């Protein structure tokens, strides 16, 4: 029993915390909102630097092995990659619409838009799954050569971010049904949206670098 309580407390720590945190925040809502946004921007900076490492590795190895990169890139499925790019850009737009909608208290529209975003993300993942499994079944995987290592490492880490983004947006979607957001209280939707834009932005860089070399 005690253990179950402990595990539950890990999942929902706020229930275990002193009530002051939930009930009476000691900061005014305006400060909270701007602080959350500043915090999120800083976090996005760290994400950019995380991928910065991958981009640096890409640049160094592409300069060193231009032929390998051209050949490897030619073997990637440009059509599937382009479809995924369009899907992600579209999902970025739907999230942006959701953020605008909540400020006008249009909860229904927020929910629809978040649903579309999640579906887009899922389609992106399914496409990626087919791409990966096709490559793997042809005996190409991480470690085949440096280009494919970069391809799998970069798209893999990006895919992980897509999943995280889906989880974040999923929780937000669930909470819209619980009536937690309104035009006065929409910080979570806004910073969740920011995160999704980042996921999109990184793909917009990855796509030409990996699929459209030479």
């Amino acid at each position, binding site marked *: 029993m005690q253990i179950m309580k402990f595990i539950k*407390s890990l999942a929902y*720590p*706020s229930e*275990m*915390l*002193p*009530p*002051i*945190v939930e009930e009476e925040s*000691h*900061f005014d809502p305006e*400060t909270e909102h*701007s*602080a*959350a946004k*500043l*915090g999120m921007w*800083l*976090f996005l*900076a*760290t*994400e950019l*630097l*995380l*991928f*910065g*490492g*991958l981009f*640096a*590795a890409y640049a*160094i*190895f592409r300069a*060193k*092995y231009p032929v390998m990169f051209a050949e490897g890139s030619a073997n990637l499925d440009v059509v599937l990659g382009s479809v995924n790019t369009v899907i992600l850009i579209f999902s970025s737009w739907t999230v942006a619409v959701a953020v605008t909608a909540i400020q006008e208290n249009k909860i229904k529209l927020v929910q629809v838009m978040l649903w579309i975003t999640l579906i887009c993300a899922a389609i992106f993942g399914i496409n990626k799954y087919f791409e990966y499994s096709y490559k793997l079944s042809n005996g190409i*995987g*991480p*470690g085949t*050569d*440096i280009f494919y*290592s*970069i391809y*799998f*490492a970069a798209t893999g*880490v990006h895919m992980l971010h897509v999943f995280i983004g889906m989880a974040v947006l999923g929780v937000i979607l669930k909470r819209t049904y619980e009536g937690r957001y309104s035009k006065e209280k929409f910080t979570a939707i806004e910073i969740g949206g920011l995160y999704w834009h980042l996921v999109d932005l990184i793909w917009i860089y990855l796509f030409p670098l990996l699929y459209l070399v030479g």
Partner: protein
Amino acid sequence: MTDHHDFDKNYLENGKGFKSWFFTVDHKRLGVMYLWAIGVFFVLAAIASFLIRFEHLSPGQTIISAQTYNVLFTLHGAVMVFLFIVPGVAASFGNFLIPLMIGARDVIFPKLNLYSFWIYCAGSLILLLSLAAPVDTGWTFYTPYSIDTGTNVILVTFGVFVLGFSSILTGINFIVSMHKLRAPGLTWDRLPLFCWAAYATSLLQVLATPVVGITLLLLIGERYFGLGFFDPAKGGDPVLFQHFFWFYSHPAVYIMILPAMGIISEVIPVFSRKPIFGYKAIAYSSLAIALISFLVWGHHMFTSGQSKLINIIFSVITFAVAVPTAIKVFNWLWTMYKGSVELSAAMLYSLAFIFLFTIGGLTGLFLGALAADVHLHDTYFVVAHMHYVMIGGTVFGLFSAIHFWYPKMWGKMFDEFKAKIAFTLIFIGFNIVFFPQFILGTQGMPRRYFNYAPEFETLHQLSTYGTWILGVGFIYMLYTLFKPVGAADSNPYRSVSLEWQMPSPPPTLNFKEIPTVTTSTYDYGTKVEQEA
């Protein structure tokens, strides 16, 4: 549950038992828990270093095998760096002090702060789990050895990866807190210098940690999938790994030292009853150091095989970072000029910091000079230099903080006289351990050597004897700190800083009303016509 709106209860009394601590969002309790955690890891890593030094009493095997030796110096380095000194002062005293100093009731994201602590615990556990097949790569995980070795590199690097999140989230929390929660009237140029230092540290944590994150992730991929980025056998480049690694780990040096510099800037004015000399120079030099530190990582790699031009550029920038550091030393010294200096234990540690850090900094000049570094790189000279900065700097700063804020943190006083004896032992022991290592290194004794040539024996033995004095001093310091004598006033040192204007220990919510600040944090002395 107790009533959390009760301002008469201090933070230590507010709730008892494991749950009231481990699930707290109180920044003070989190700071105290970090202090405990880093203390435990410090002792663990120190024990490893004592064994290492003991092994060097004689050439060849003294007590442990070569493999055990390699494991021990890896454990010592990894635990000291990733579990002790990187979270170190910033997480412990940063958490405890920043909200008090800026006049806030907590950090801006209290729950996130708690999660950071949990992530820190999780990362530490993962790292320590690797002890099942302990890693022998050195804390730098240089490839291709770290790809090749049969030990548990994946667990350790994953642990460090997880710890990185804790570091990043804490950094974000501090930066946003200082932007959004400063009390009315507490302008940036009135902000305590500890906060400035913590701000610079947080910037480094936020901007440098992700790079080591991806590096270690790639190293894991390297071992798991054979990615090949860092493996020469697969067309990869081991020097690239070093670039990535030091791009984080050099700024990390300043993550370690800047908060300690912040502490010194708080302690010296109080015990001199003088405003800090050159507030702006110290504040801005913290930021300057933080920014320049991103551009000097290559000085760890002068002999790595990177190009000559790159070496020259990194050497220039390295000397550029030396200047703001020198400025700070003289500013601290001049703070005592015409002051009323009290040699308390905390002050002694701070003054020792100035002296030892000066030695650490000056020996850095040897290593920054290209031709000299060719000779000194990867010898004991580097080991000694690094320990003069990390122990003589950071650890002495931490000890100074532990003594200085002891009354505030625990509401009690310790025995000043005994603390000074402990200080004397630690100061003497430290110098006997590490000063001979400068000479060893100059004579060509390489680091990470299990075995050594007989001509180095005397200096090695001297260094080992020093650890015994250091150990005794350290134990005596702990003994003194664990035996408080009497209760503390709210402000025993007559400091004018905000955190001393509240009861000791502080109430859970810090301030009944958010104060309005009207003066500088260092408003000491009588304003007279300034003499030339």
